[in-house]
């Protein structure tokens, strides 16, 4: 399965980042701005789960902004599904380290937010609100948040908010899910629980997923392929396929082949950090 995805990636990747550079502040800025990415090339196949790891400040969040079209590249080309990305895509769902729910909306209304914005749901939303609410309830139930729909986000724990935030990212059934350290602020137990939640959702829906993380075990547990980015200016310095069978289980997360993969990544990252 991982092999199949990788084969697809070489043919015509769903997400195609080709020799991209990005400078914050522009060349005109004082000191020439910050060069966040340079000569960065990465392909992600359709339905593939890729994890991106690398030292802090190396441009991982920037990479996601490029893919989602929130920020244009200074050089090179970003294409999704064969089309150059020139403005924000509508097939994307995003979630961040901070769940940033709207505190004046209930959890259910927060999850429904994308449907009020993305076509074709947007124009149907008023008429079919009940059906959409039902869809949101089902999704919330899959992440064990049944019964919390009418609570306000600030009445939920951090982990529950993060699960709701995942639901918000997925409610409009995006083809591409971009996650920026979504579990970083959680305790180890909640985090591992959410790995399984995310894995289950992915196995069911098979969206394309790019996960930025600092947690190498998280990367190996979830991804088909782990990509290591170098120090700033960031570029891809290693791509490690993860051939472990799915569904992966926490019980196996201390197995020899799992741990070996984590060590390989760890060594590479220390090497990259030394190179600074």
């Amino acid at each position, binding site marked *: 399965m991982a092999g199949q995805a990788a084969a697809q990636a070489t043919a015509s990747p769903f997400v195609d980042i080709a020799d991209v550079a990005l400078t914050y502040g522009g060349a005109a800025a004082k000191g020439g701005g910050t060069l966040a990415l340079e000569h960065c090339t990465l392909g992600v196949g359709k339905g593939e789960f890729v994890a991106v790891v690398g030292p802090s400040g190396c441009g991982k969040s920037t990479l996601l902004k490029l893919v989602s079209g929130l920020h244009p590249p200074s050089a090179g080309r970003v294409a999704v599904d064969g089309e150059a990305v020139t403005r924000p895509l509508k097939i*994307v769902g995003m979630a961040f380290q901070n769940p940033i729910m709207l505190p004046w909306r209930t959890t259910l209304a927060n999850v429904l937010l994308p449907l009020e914005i993305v076509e074709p749901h947007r124009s149907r939303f008023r008429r079919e609100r009940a059906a959409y609410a039902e869809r949101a309830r089902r999704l919330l139930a899959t992440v064990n948040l049944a019964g919390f729909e009418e609570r*306000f986000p*600030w009445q939920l724990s951090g982990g529950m908010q993060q699960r709701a935030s995942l639901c918000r990212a997925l409610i409009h059934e995006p083809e591409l899910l971009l996650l920026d350290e979504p579990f970083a602020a959680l305790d180890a137990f909640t985090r591992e629980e959410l790995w399984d939640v995310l894995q289950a959702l992915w196995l069911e829906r098979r969206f394309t997923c790019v996960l930025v993380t600092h947690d190498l075990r998280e990367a190996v547990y979830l991804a088909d392929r782990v990509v290591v980015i170098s120090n700033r200016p960031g570029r891809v310095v290693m791509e490690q396929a993860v051939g472990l069978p799915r569904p992966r289980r926490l019980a196996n997360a201390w197995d020899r082949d799992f741990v070996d993969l984590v060590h390989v990544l760890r060594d590479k990252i220390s090497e990259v950090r030394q190179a600074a």
Partner: protein
Amino acid sequence: MGTFWRFLRSPAFAPWLITAGLLLVWEAYCRLLDVSPFVLPAPTTIAHSMVRFWPAIWINAEQTLFTTVAGFALAVGFGLALGVAIGASPWLYQALYPLLIGFNAIPKVALVPVLIVWVGIGTIPAIITAFSISFFPIVVNVATGVATVEPELRDVLRSLGARQRDILVKVAIPRSLPYFFASLKIAITLAFVGSVISETVAANRGIGYLMVKDAGENVPRMFAALILVAVLAVVMYGVAALVERRFTHWATRGVDQAGGTTGF
């Protein structure tokens, strides 16, 4: 008995306690030192005057209340619109901020003679003064609320293809409401300041007018009028606070959520 004592010591009773204490000290001071009522009338003298001259005081207070509320209402409409516009557009923000700061720095007393030239005396200059002094905090607060939408939240919405207008309606305006309501409490008291200032110079009705007329003549009534303004302002403040609590419960109870970045 126990509950009664607890009530007396509760925060809800504290303002009454302190105010009563202040009045007592004031009264004692006037009586013990035999202060002339033309300098500082005792609270009982003022109360007496308030009752005795109530019709005259109330006619003027009504006028002041009207001009204040009218000026305040204009400030709310204008302040909200301008605040949203400035908050949403960095260009407008840059363009208008120096102007707004400059205007706010002009003492509004200095504005009244200009208004006399333009619109004469009476109700209109009082409304305009109340308006001009009270819209600033509303504009600044609303603009702050609108402009400080978390960039990540903006990204979530933009990545869904949200237009500027969507972000404004779905996020920026709702999240600026606590700022808006907080500014109302400041604005309403400022509006009283504005209308009374205008009335002292450019009116033949209103509390400000009455006070100037009474100065050196009927000092107890002057103080009665002054105190009535204070009471009216406290009542209006209370109304604003009530409205605030009603509409922004999420901001006060969601301390953890909103707290970090917005300072609530």
